[in-house]
């Protein structure tokens, strides 16, 4: 009996190896700078938090839609889902059906099993966009919106409200994904169609570059305000083609999504909602210490 006790004694003192949590990151879009940043942030956090991360993306060519992904995550034995969506109703319903705990990223989701929500500060983002245009526009001017989603985008509602307050008219809302070429073609077309267009607001980084190239090509005096940042966009800001870009902390959203999911699985308290601020990047502040570290994150 003593032998048995002695054998079990050290075992009782040993920390049992914690079972690795399995976390699913569901992205409602297959590609795009914003989504890639979220995925990168999530991967970084997963490595630091020692959780197993699986990223699920829609694959429309093979018929895998975003709303199919929650069930797939459930079948794969995931413990928690991080849903980076734009609030699509079908995905919300699919998430509800899995009954898995969910951390909503980027958009508020009404779910019973919601652990936490990590959001971009949309109000401030819309406000920042309007402010960035403010110097270039006056009452009666017109604005074109280039979006990467059919759904209402982060900050779009707030922007429209501000523009309305400024007496600026939104001439149209064009979908061009997060594609430079697509945005270039769409912008060229719209610039021909709208000769009096005063400004363009683009909701994705690469599309902003495309829009800037079109404006530069036609040598039109059209103010451009973009979203997020890629290297080409920085050059556009430097040469003044793009007045400003609103940089969201999408990396941080992915990172915090995984962190909260891991903490919740370990039984620790997590904030119900966390809002990350976006920053306005202009030619004047691009190389300031504060903006540099956001625009050129050290890899």
């Amino acid at each position: 009996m003593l032998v048995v006790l002695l054998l079990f004694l050290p075992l009782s003192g040993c920390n049992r190896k914690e079972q690795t949590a399995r976390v699913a990151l569901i992205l409602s879009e297959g590609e795009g700078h914003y989504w890639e940043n979220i995925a990168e942030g999530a991967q970084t956090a997963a490595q630091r938090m020692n959780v197993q991360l699986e990223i699920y993306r829609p694959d429309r060519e093979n018929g895998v839609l975003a709303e199919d992904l929650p069930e797939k995550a459930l079948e794969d034995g995931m413990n928690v889902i991080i849903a980076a969506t734009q609030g699509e109703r079908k995905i919300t319903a699919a998430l509800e059906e899995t009954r898995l705990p969910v951390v909503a990223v980027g958009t508020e989701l009404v779910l019973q099993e919601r652990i936490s929500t990590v959001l971009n500060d949309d109000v401030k983002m819309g406000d920042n966009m309007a402010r960035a245009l403010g110097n270039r526009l006056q009452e009666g001017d017109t604005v074109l919106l280039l979006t990467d989603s059919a759904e209402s985008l982060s900050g779009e509602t707030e922007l429209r409200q501000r523009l309305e307050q400024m007496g600026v008219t939104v001439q149209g809302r064009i979908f061009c994904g997060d594609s430079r070429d697509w945005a270039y073609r769409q912008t060229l077309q719209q610039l021909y169609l709208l000769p009096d267009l005063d400004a363009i607001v683009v909701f994705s980084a690469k599309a902003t570059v495309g829009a800037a190239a079109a404006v530069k090509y036609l040598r039109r005096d059209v103010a451009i305000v973009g979203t997020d940042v890629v290297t080409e966009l920085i050059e556009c800001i430097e040469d003044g083609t793009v007045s400003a870009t609103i940089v969201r902390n999408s990396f941080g959203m992915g990172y915090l999504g995984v962190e909260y999911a891991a903490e919740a699985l370990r039984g620790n308290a997590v904030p119900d909602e966390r809002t990350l601020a976006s920053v306005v990047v202009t030619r004047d502040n691009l190389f300031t210490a504060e903006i540099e570290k956001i625009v050129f994150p050290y890899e």
Partner: protein
Amino acid sequence: MKWRPSIRLVMPLCMVGVALMVMVIVCVIYSTTATTMFSQLGMSNTLQAMDQVSERLSDSIGQVKDVLREVADGMEEDRGRADSRQFDSSLRLSAGAMENLSALLLLDEYGNSVLGLPSAEIKKTCRLTSMDWFNQARTAGLGETVFSRPHVQNLYPGEYPWVVSVTRKVRYWQDDLPHTGILMADMRLEPLEDICRSVTLGDNGYLYILDDSGNIIYHPEQKLMSLELISEENILSEDTQSEDQSMVLAQTIEGTNWKLTASVTSDDVAKYSTAFISRVTWVVIALTAGVLLVALWLSMRIVQPLTDIQVSMQRIERNLDDNRMSLPEEGFAEYASLAHSYNVMLHRIRGLMQETVDRQEQLRRMEIGALQEQINPHFLYNTLDSIVRVMETGRTPEAIEMVQALAKLFRLSINNGDYFLTVEQEMDYARNYLTIQQVRYKKRFKYELYMDESIKDLPCPKIILQPLIENSLKHGMSDMPGCTLIVRARQEGYNIVLSVEDDGLGIPPEKLKKLQEMLRDDSNIMVKKSRYGIGLRNTNRRIKLLYGSDYGLTIESEVEERTCVTITFPKHRP
């Protein structure tokens, strides 16, 4: 039977208990010492690693500074040669420095490029005069080396490297005119990162570099910190600060105003100690298990023979009469000796038991013998025949006396079945016997009886005098008329002494000697038959059986003079 702890249980427990106690004490002492020692070792290792990294960083930064100095000195000494060849020759002097640099520029005071490596054209959108590093250098003294904060350099199209701009205000010659300019080297951060990553500080420890303003030059989690996803308190002091679970150590990198900072957890510092304690714990467990096994084996070895002995003893206890049963005399010497002693004791017990049985048998036979003596038909026939002859001769009083004596003889011999008479009764028995025999022997002898009054009521084995009297009459006085036979009963100390003495023929010395030896020898309790003195021998045996070998008969005799047989036995009943 009341439960008692067995050796089999107590011995291993005691051994393990003692072993555990000793090992735990040793472990505690060793662990305490080891923890301190290993903590110091861990700290020492950390400081040593920091020294190495600091030295390499200093060398790396020193190369950049050397390049600036070489170029500056060259331009100072060799007027008008502020050209790209000057740069190249200076860079060659500092082998490997180019790996650390992303750009080397000579700028005039207005931010215009004079010379540059790479020679690509600086972007038109680049406004150098608005750069912090340019303004820092412009306000510095001539020849002074200034380090900028880490920043993104945007000199060339499509390139946005993170660098630290190292600048030096220099004098150069252009068109034979002296100018003051800024010599700038963009030092890439990757080499510094590689140096910092080249050492590991435990599982969780890491190194980072801060400048004198607290700006992070390098941090392994720089991106997360930039995005404010994690934070770390900037430590600018060189003192060691202990926090809850981590320690921060900082030291200045030589030749700069940067601090190399190490963040190490106490677990990492003490990891050798933890590993040591863990190993020691396992050793203790293994040793305890070993001691337990040895103790169990030893107790088995010790206890098993005892158990065998116990079982054997119980079996022998149940079958004590079985002479074939004994303990095996094997195993340890102590057990063999114990078994031997037990077997000897067993043998003696069995001997004593047998002796007791034999003694009882002897007594029974003696008793039967005594009874047979009382009703000896020859004696009775002879006596009755004598009575008849006496009566035929008209000696009626003698006949009456004989009949009365015979009657008393019988009464005393029966005595309610008691084996003992009083001394007085025994003397009466002798008197009656002598009365009968005197008639039979026609009064050819005389007899006298003497008895101490003090012993008349003391117990005496019955009919012990009669065989001696008969013996004396038959052998001592048979052919000698006028002999006297004296029977005495007296006390000597705690003993009663009865004697039968006659003044008859006496016993020849050889025969006397044999008789004396026969009576003296204890072993003759179980004696073999002898031709001599059967009556004496039987009486002697009876006394010895009843009272032990210290008592019995003695015989003295002188030829033609006298013979005296003495019986000695204690006053109390056996």
